[in-house]
């Protein structure tokens, strides 16, 4: 038996990045905005989504893709609002990769939607490693997790466009320093948009909604010009 050595020199996530590029192109063509929503388990991803659907749902056609290791608890919660939702099971994997997202989008249908949220697996590490082709990467840091998280999970803060600091109404109880969290996040990513919010009271959502509206309008204009 003779074995020969083949030099490959290929980044392991090269095929993932190609699939992400295809998703990005598909979104552009259909005039749809894809938001990758990430954060720890319990950070409030589903609660934030419910608030955003409440604020944007009358004006935009919204779809939600719920990624979980198992169960359909979140999908049921979202479906109760009348929003189109698809449940994706990763079968034990701790993140969604670009190919899984691309296949989910194909069965979900994107042409008749303005805005799609992917609620990623609750995890501050792995989802940051896998580019999925989203137009907006929105991560949620919740107050009880602590303002030191950008130091401990730098990649998530480096790759996100937006950091929502959720449960801000509990900041005094947890000695959470919002400004310190922002300084730490910005030292990793100078452009990151930081907004303190409470999915419970609705505080801060005007700003998040305004940000998304701006991106949605840009996408719509780009689509109409084509």
């Amino acid at each position, binding site marked *: *038996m*003779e*074995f*020969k*050595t*083949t*030099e*490959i*020199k*290929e*980044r*392991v*996530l*090269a*095929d*993932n990045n190609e699939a992400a590029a295809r998703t990005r192109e598909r979104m552009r063509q259909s005039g749809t905005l894809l938001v990758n929503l990430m954060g720890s388990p319990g950070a409030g991803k589903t609660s934030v989504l419910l608030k955003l659907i409440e604020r944007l749902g009358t004006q935009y056609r919204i779809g939600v893709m719920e990624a979980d290791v198992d169960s359909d608890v979140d999908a049921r919660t979202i479906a109760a609002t009348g929003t189109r939702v698809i449940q994706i099971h990763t079968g*034990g*994997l*701790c*993140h969604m*990769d670009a190919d899984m997202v691309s296949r989910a989008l194909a069965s979900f249908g994107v042409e008749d939607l303005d805005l799609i949220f992917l609620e990623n697996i609750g995890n501050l*590490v*792995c989802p940051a*490693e*896998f580019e999925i082709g989203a137009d907006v990467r929105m991560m949620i840091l919740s107050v009880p997790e602590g303002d030191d998280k950008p130091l401990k999970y730098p*990649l998530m803060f480096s790759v996100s466009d937006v950091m929502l600091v959720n449960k801000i109404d509990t900041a005094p109880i947890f000695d959470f320093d919002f400004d310190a969290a922002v300084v730490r996040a910005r*030292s990793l990513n100078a452009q990151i948009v930081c907004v303190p919010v409470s999915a419970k009271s609705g505080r801060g959502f005007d700003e998040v909604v305004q940000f998304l509206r701006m991106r949605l309008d840009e996408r719509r204009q780009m689509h109409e010009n084509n």
Partner: protein
Amino acid sequence: MHELGIVFHIIKTIEDVAAEQNLTRVSKVVLEVGEVSAVIPEYLQDCWQWACRRSPLMNGSVLQNEIIPAVTYCESCGKTYETVKHAKVCPHCGSEQTYLLEGNGVQIREIEAE
């Protein structure tokens, strides 16, 4: 624990190469793992054993991890330093205007196959 996902990507890439070059069995894969890639080599080995048993091409192949040291560059003084030892602050001049030069990626260097 995204190592299993990484392993699936490696196997898929190698399966593509094998199809192009008519390779039928892979005996060894050399992987370059960045020191700050957030990939844990020991977990990678566990996932590797499990995943390779499910692929006729990869069954029995050995994974060799080569660790690539992480290096950070300082924009203020132009010097480089070990990332893991000094993190964000340059040990030469104390500046925080620094960025990671290498050591955060995972790359397949080469494979041995027939």
